[in-house]
């Protein structure tokens, strides 16, 4: 059978996958702990978002094996995705304007 992956070998242990899985479980649990903290909503958001980004990074690098793909391809995926995700944050000031009620929002 033709396999396209150079990084895979039959003897690869399952230990790393299990370790990443356990890390993800712990991080998911951490999100639930953070959610129960009695802190400001924005603090809550940033802390949980930070944990989610670490979780996503682990999943992409190890479960989806992006870390072992060709460097050019990995860079393309990461740079393109992160750029568009950041560009989406352009409208937050307008959201705050709705709450604050600046004159032009009425």
């Amino acid at each position, binding site marked *: *059978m*033709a396999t*396209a992956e150079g990084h895979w070998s039959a003897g690869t242990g399952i230990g790393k996958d299990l370790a990443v899985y356990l890390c993800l479980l712990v991080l998911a649990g951490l999100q*639930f702990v953070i*959610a129960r903290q009695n802190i400001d909503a924005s603090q*809550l958001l940033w802390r*949980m978002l930070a944990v989610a980004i670490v979780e996503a990074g682990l*999943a992409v690098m190890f479960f989806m094996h992006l870390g072992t793909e060709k460097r050019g391809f990995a860079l393309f*995926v990461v740079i393109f995705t992160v750029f568009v995700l950041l560009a989406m944050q352009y*409208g937050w000031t307008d959201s705050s304007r709705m709450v604050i009620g600046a004159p032009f929002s009425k």
Partner: protein
Amino acid sequence: MSQADLTLDEHSTGLTIGPVFSIPTKKLAMWLFIIADTMTFAACLVAYGFVRNGSPDWPRPFHSITNVALMTFILLTSSLTMLLALRSARMGDKAAAFRWTMITAAAGILFAILHVREWMALISEGMTLFKNPWGTGLFGASFFTITGLHLTHVTGGIIALIVVGVRYKGGRYNADDIEILGLYWHFVDLVWMFVVPLVYLLNLAH
């Protein structure tokens, strides 16, 4: 050599002929789909954040985290079983690969059942797409849109797992197909990592 090849050679100075980034075409297609789908989910979550930030009477209806914690555990575990399916497929153990693929599908079905049960509980409390008893009606619209989109992906994944698993067992698909399906399934898991804190945990009743 065909005329098409000759024409290509004539104009291909400095260009690479072959798979883009030297990865298989089907895998590249799945990655491009994942990137596009990331934008879809991100747009939904940003729009949700936008209306949540702009609504003073945003409801916090979730009292228990048990159900969502269980759903998270099931989905994370299904990612592990998907990896085991791929590992078995790469090692040529067809029976084990099929078994792990079906276990992953079963986990997906369990997740979907818990999700629908949660929806039914919210609907029975009076929550619809346009109104709810707790605050702005935008909550129902954003909640059902985001979780519904994710549930649609899970449902599609379950169907794909069953179809690819059966075809792999029958010899029509190979380990590469299991890997490509695995990419999709891990992506569904990855999206849930953002849906849980933003849609559920941020709206826990205090």
